[in-house]
């Protein structure tokens, strides 16, 4: 019990006066009991799939506003999708906490770069990031592309740069990633399935 004995006895006197007062007809009129108002009444529902394990639970994301031009949709609550044949509205502790993933303070917001030897990040624009990355990739590819092996067989591979693909990005992202990466001749290419 968390209440200290001392507190416990302080309670008694307060209780005495309080309940006695009401018993004599001095019932407070304001602030009668009401339940909290239902917080999702007019929020917008969007169907999605939990991004964690492979059960693929259906979720409903509730967002602020009704998609009007001037309303900024902010997700305010996430629950299981009761129509989904597998999870039937249920979620695990990870799925149930998805809102805190969406709003994690460790979400990345801007492209950054850490220069050689540096101790810190520096914010950069997307164009600069893309330009620099593409340039580095091209330099490496042009320098190390293997068109033919020692036997003179055409092998067209690029081994000095590798790529690890995501485990939770959608098929469409995965498809275009494969298309680009293989097209450059990369073989050092895996996804989370390998581990």
């Amino acid at each position, binding site marked *: 019990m968390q209440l200290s004995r001392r507190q416990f006895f302080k309670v008694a006197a307060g209780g005495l006066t309080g309940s006695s007062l009401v018993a004599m007809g001095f019932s407070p009129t304001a602030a009668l009991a009401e339940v909290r108002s239902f917080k999702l009444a007019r929020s917008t529902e969007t169907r999605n*799939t*939990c*991004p964690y*394990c*492979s059960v*693929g639970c*259906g979720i409903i994301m509730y967002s602020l506003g009704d998609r009007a031009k001037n309303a*900024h949709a902010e*997700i305010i609550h996430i629950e299981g999708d009761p*129509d989904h044949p597998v*999870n039937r509205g249920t979620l*695990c*502790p*990870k799925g149930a906490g*998805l809102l805190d*993933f*969406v709003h994690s*303070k460790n979400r*990345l*917001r801007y492209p*950054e*770069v*850490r220069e*050689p*030897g540096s101790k810190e*990040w520096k914010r950069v624009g*997307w164009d600069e990031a893309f330009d620099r*990355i593409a340039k*580095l*990739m*091209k330099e490496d590819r*042009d320098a190390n592309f293997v068109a033919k092996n020692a036997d003179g067989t*055409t*092998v067209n591979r690029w*081994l*000095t*740069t590798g790529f*690890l693909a*995501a*485990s*939770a*990005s*959608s*098929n469409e*992202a*995965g498809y*275009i990633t*494969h*298309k*680009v*990466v*293989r*097209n450059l001749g*990369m*073989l*050092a290419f*895996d*996804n989370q*399935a390998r*581990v």
Partner: protein
Amino acid sequence: MTNHWSDIKNADVVLIMGGNAAEAHPCGFKWVTEAKATNKARLVVVDPRFTRSAALADLYAPIRTGTDIAFLGGVIHYLISTNKVHLDYIKSYTDMSYLVKDEFAFEDGFFSGYDAEKRKYDKSGWDYQLGDDGFVKTDPTLENPRCVWNLMKAHFSRYTPEVVENICGTPKDKFLQVAEMLGSTHTPNRVMTILYALGWTQHSVGSQIIRTAAMVQLLLGNIGRAGGGVNALRGHSNIQGLTDLGLLSNLLPGYMTLPGEKETDYAQYIAKRAPKPMRPGQLSYWQNYGKFHVSLMKAWYGAAATRENNWAFDYLPKLDKSYDVLQVFELMHQGKMNGYVAQGFNPLNSFPNKAKVGAALAKLKFLVIIDPLATETSEFWQNHGEFNDVDPAKIATTVFRLPSTCFAEEDGAIINSGRWLQWHWKGAEPPGEAKTDPEIMAGIFLRLREMYKKDGGAFPDPILNLTWAYKVPSEPSPEELAKEYNGKTFADQLDPKDPTKVIKKAGELLDGFAQLKDDGSTACGCWIFSGAWTEKGNMMARRDNADPWHNGQTLGWAFAWPANRRILYNRAAADPAGKPWDARRKQVWWDAAQGKWVGSDVPDFKIDSAPEDGMGPFIMNPEGVARFFARGMMNEGPFPEHYEPFETPIGVNPMHPKNPKATSNPAARVFKGDMEAFGTAKEFPYAATTYRLTEHFHYWTKHVESNAIIQPEQFVEIGEALAKEKGIAAGDRVKVSSNRGYIKAVAVVTKRIQPLKVDGKTVHHVGIPLHWGFKGVAKNGFITNTLTPFVGDGNTQTPEFKSFLVNVEKA
């Protein structure tokens, strides 16, 4: 999964082994509790730890980590010797009667053809005997000593309950209770499902463990049936999809494979992958490989892929060896790599031997991180005290960190373990300037293409010819990409049965992979996904959850590959005459009146092939049947054999005590330096295993406040006996070390880990949850993979995270 989540409710027995479904897949596990509540199903859990799954089990048996083949081998021996096999099933649906070449042998821990120098087998002798007609020779009487059945019986006869107890530490009576429970499903009216996950894959013999499980299920006649199957519970939400799409070093989309550098001839490349039937009347569906392949190359290269240039065969890079992540980080560690991109991936935490991985990354010229979260990998160069003690000044890697969207901020499909492609919708804008992965890939690619167009460079042809007809080139939309992997036709396609009828007009989306052609008239980015987005619209977005057969098969919900089929090999749910084995569990059956297969599922079969035709249910195999004998398809042998983990607590393989070279997987690849980094039981006496907790997801949810609250701080689990021996109390801080490094964590002292008696010794397990790191809102902690060994499965190179050696002491 051969089956799918809701199908688990149809099981009579559920075996969870090599996984912990309650912990890692709670919402899928509900179908286990459902099977128990409504089907009187029994749950059996075999695990080194008494897990959350075990908490609900009817029967729990402990097992030493890494000894699953011995356990399951013991089950095979039990089933065969007590005649608890579904004989009618295996006679018709497996290779049990096939004759094996005389060269094949097994002696003293090695199969025939072993080269100890190269740690490799010459697998040519591991095959069937072929007759003059080119077909496999069989002996339906099973009398020939060279038939698979007799070889298999002999192989597993060594796995007696006593041997199982001695290797696994499972008390004999517990083992026999499990075997008996599993064996109860050999009758046609009872079915068992097996649920496994990374507790099987993450071993140096992982693939063979899974094969052993498949053999158990075949013996019991449980494959292809509702409530049955061998079910891989994948670890991540779209790891199934990314694998299906072939984002692995040796794959192309739809489980097609890249050519090796010796495969210089295009026709031979195709022919090798499109095997002719090995028995009369078999379908051997991979014979269509050419259609899938040409359609892929047309999707990628359009008009630049022509018959004349072998559909741009030269554009594909050719393999000289495997480039799995262990190989790649080995090369990186040797300083042979310059650039690396990690998209939604945290290799510093995810790969074994963190010290080696960190040192490898430090040798890169540039590293690109694409992620929604601030991962440890993105800050491998930053000093985080004891957790990551590096000197940034000495690390010359340029690191880019690009913010990507998360699930809530994009449209698209992801694929669950049951192979369901489920579409999801965007609910909000991403934070700051975050972009979607396709936008980021486009951003890099379009710049590269521009530079190659302008300045030229090494082999620019594929780059310049890659199809990119997206309406907004910098932002390929999910809809466009989904249609691209579904496939379309360039020309009018005629009905093969009635060439006067046009079934598809030029430009239309295809209905499925049966419409693919190898003449260049169709394009399809991933043949197994064909049918996902047709002229009828987005099949992945379907939301009809009706379950008219009450078997959990909601064919109107989303789209399952292949062809919206929910249970693979479902032809095997019917007997050879085409009648369901069990009327209570009808899947597909032959309707003679209609002359076709019908049922509650999409038949996994040639729809009009009558039972009399004798076509086998395993249509992807050229044999038409399932294989007990793996031929040359596995690197360490056609039959599974027990080998110890590379770090073994007993130092010997009790199956082959006289052959130290057969202690651990003889065909597993070990790099120089990594062998030396293995520890021995003398210094590191305890068997360790890593795993997930239900409160967390991998290395993500330590960034998530609600999950940090319910499981805030790194801990390790040790049994009461070991704790007593070491004077450790619950809540003490302990140091856990392997030959590669150490971590410190809080000790959870538990009755749920019991010491096991193995080969005359006492083996203690140490359980190490993996979720912590030096970035997050949970309490910072050590990277668990500081401890793990840099060695992988002999076939897939999946690291041996589940069995290694540590020492434990009070910190």
